């Protein structure tokens, strides 16, 4: 059983950029923990400080109380998937893993096992230069798993994976977290809907600071729900709901009633004998919670466009759509 603990973790790049600002959080084993935040929130910098690649300006981030640089043979304790690069293009995947296995004193049979696990066995002797993004991502995961670490840290692991790959990774991470008395699995992501399916705990960053931490369920409870009904009799339904002190809005054939549940709306529909073709309810999503915590920066749910790109995102693939100065809409609830 291992833990990760950050205390007053701060990283300043030059005098201008304060990437991480007095960050305190801890990650417990046994569940998948999501590490979320808008671009430039400091996720990658924090993860790189965790594994000793970047030195904190002040504060610490420790693995069972130890700095990564003092962990004995860290390959056996911590596996980190940081970027889908870091391969010599002329070296084969198998040789790449053998180099790392040699450094950690891991027998080569484990190299074959890891290649098999991520589905790269048949391509293992090809030069990595010819690999697709998804294959590189898998190879990174294979490398991180070489030492069967009880701490697994992944930075945007779904990047470049196809839908099957993402689904596979989700199940794998959930399984890995509960094996062997519980392992620490910390996964950063900008794909909130994917994260909602995968993670139980979240650590949410905004502008280098901790915005929220806890069980996703707890953070989402107490949130509003909305009911959306499709009916040919929309006008009468709005009136009926209004009579029951449930303000609703009409949107063509749809009626949307916020702050209620189907259990409340259902009897009103029956009492008024209104014909209904469809009724859906939505609880507040991680996405909505995320926007309310991060000041509305990120994706406009209804239009699916990114807003509020931070300047620190250079070098990352840009989002499919460029910013339109749309209104922040923290309460938007997709149905």
């Amino acid at each position, binding site marked *: 059983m291992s833990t990760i603990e950050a205390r007053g973790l701060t990283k300043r790049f030059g005098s201008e950029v304060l990437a991480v600002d007095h960050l305190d959080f801890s990650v417990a084993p046994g569940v998948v923990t999501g590490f979320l935040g808008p671009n430039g929130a400091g996720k990658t910098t924090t993860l*790189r400080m965790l594994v000793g690649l970047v030195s904190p300006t002040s504060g610490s981030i420790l693995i069972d109380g130890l700095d990564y640089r003092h962990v004995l043979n860290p390959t056996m304790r911590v596996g980190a998937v940081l970027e889908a690069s870091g391969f010599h293009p002329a*070296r084969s995947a198998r040789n790449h893993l*053998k*180099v790392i296995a*040699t*450094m950690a004193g891991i027998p080569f049979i484990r190299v074959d096992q890891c290649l098999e696990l991520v589905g790269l066995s048949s391509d293992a002797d090809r030069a990595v230069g010819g690999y697709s993004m998804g294959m590189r991502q898998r190879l990174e995961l294979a490398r991180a798993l070489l030492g069967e670490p009880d701490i697994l840290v992944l930075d945007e692991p779904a990047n470049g994976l196809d839908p099957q790959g993402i689904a596979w990774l989700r199940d794998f991470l959930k399984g890995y977290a509960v094996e062997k008395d519980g392992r620490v699995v910390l996964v950063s992501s900008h794909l909130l809907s994917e994260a909602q399916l995968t993670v139980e705990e979240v650590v949410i960053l905004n502008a280098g600071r901790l915005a929220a931490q806890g069980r996703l369920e707890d953070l989402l409870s107490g949130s509003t729900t909305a009911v959306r009904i499709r009916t040919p009799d929309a006008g009468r339904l709005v009136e009926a709901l209004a009579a029951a002190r449930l303000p609703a809005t009409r949107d063509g054939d749809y009626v949307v009633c916020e702050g209620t549940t189907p259990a409340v709306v259902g009897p009103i529909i029956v009492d008024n004998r209104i014909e209904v073709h469809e009724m859906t309810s939505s609880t507040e999503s991680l996405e909505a919670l995320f926007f309310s915590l991060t000041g509305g920066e990120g994706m406009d749910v209804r239009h699916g466009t990114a807003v509020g790109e931070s300047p620190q995102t250079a070098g990352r693939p840009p989002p499919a759509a460029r910013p339109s100065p749309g209104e922040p809409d923290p309460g938007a609830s997709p149905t």
Partner: protein
Amino acid sequence: MIRLLSAETRKLWTIWSTYVLFGIVVVVDLLFGFALAFAPGGRRGGTAGIVPHGSELWFANVFSVLGNSRLLALVLGVLIITGEYRHRTATPVFLAEPRRGRVVTAKLGIGFLGGIALGGLSMLAGLVLGLVLVALKVHSCLTFSGVQQGMAQAACRAHNGVYFVANTHDMWHQWSRIAPGIVLGTGLFVIYGVGLGALLKNQVVAIVTGLGFTLVVESIIGAIWPTIGEYLPGQAATALEDTKTTVGIGHAEQLPWWGGAVMLVIYGVVLTVVGTLTTIRSDVT
């Protein structure tokens, strides 16, 4: 440390660029060696035109080419360390061994051995070259009117000249005289390259700086201030190799062979230590 050394060895031999570097050494040695062997009269300013083909001095001239392997050793040293940054393999490597100084130390060790191998290969190519020249019975005749390259023995005697023909004894004498120096110098030049790479981090900048300094800057300094020039890496290697050639313009002073070796070790280690404490220690983002 043994794991790190073993991993560095594996890194070196699992990419084709290492084989290309070793191949280039052989090709360059044979190409330039033959060109020099049959160039009219050797290449040195003071003795141009009067080094008789087939003489022992002529073998010394031809074999001086073999020391060029140190330029490729410099490139090898630079590649060993800057390749990790260029291909971002520094990330997985420092994940597996966060004590970066140990990684660099392993690179120095394996780089040195790789350089020894490179120098050894160069000397092997030189031996082949020498044996071929012996087999070709390259000969000439030194008379009062000058050197007659390719003059047959009977004609030479008729001219009261001294007849030279390439023979195994002369060839072996010259080859064995310079071999240890070239092998050691090539090994030490990898360390020099690792140091440059550790300090400069950028592959292209480090290669251009290393080769430019060795081939251009050093010969200019050597020509203007010979007493400083003899302490520079290229001249130090020449002293160690005892090939008695100069790099480019002029004729520099020369350190004793061990002095050359000491200077090369100092360059390599000082550059590596400074590079490790500055560039290598900085954040890998």
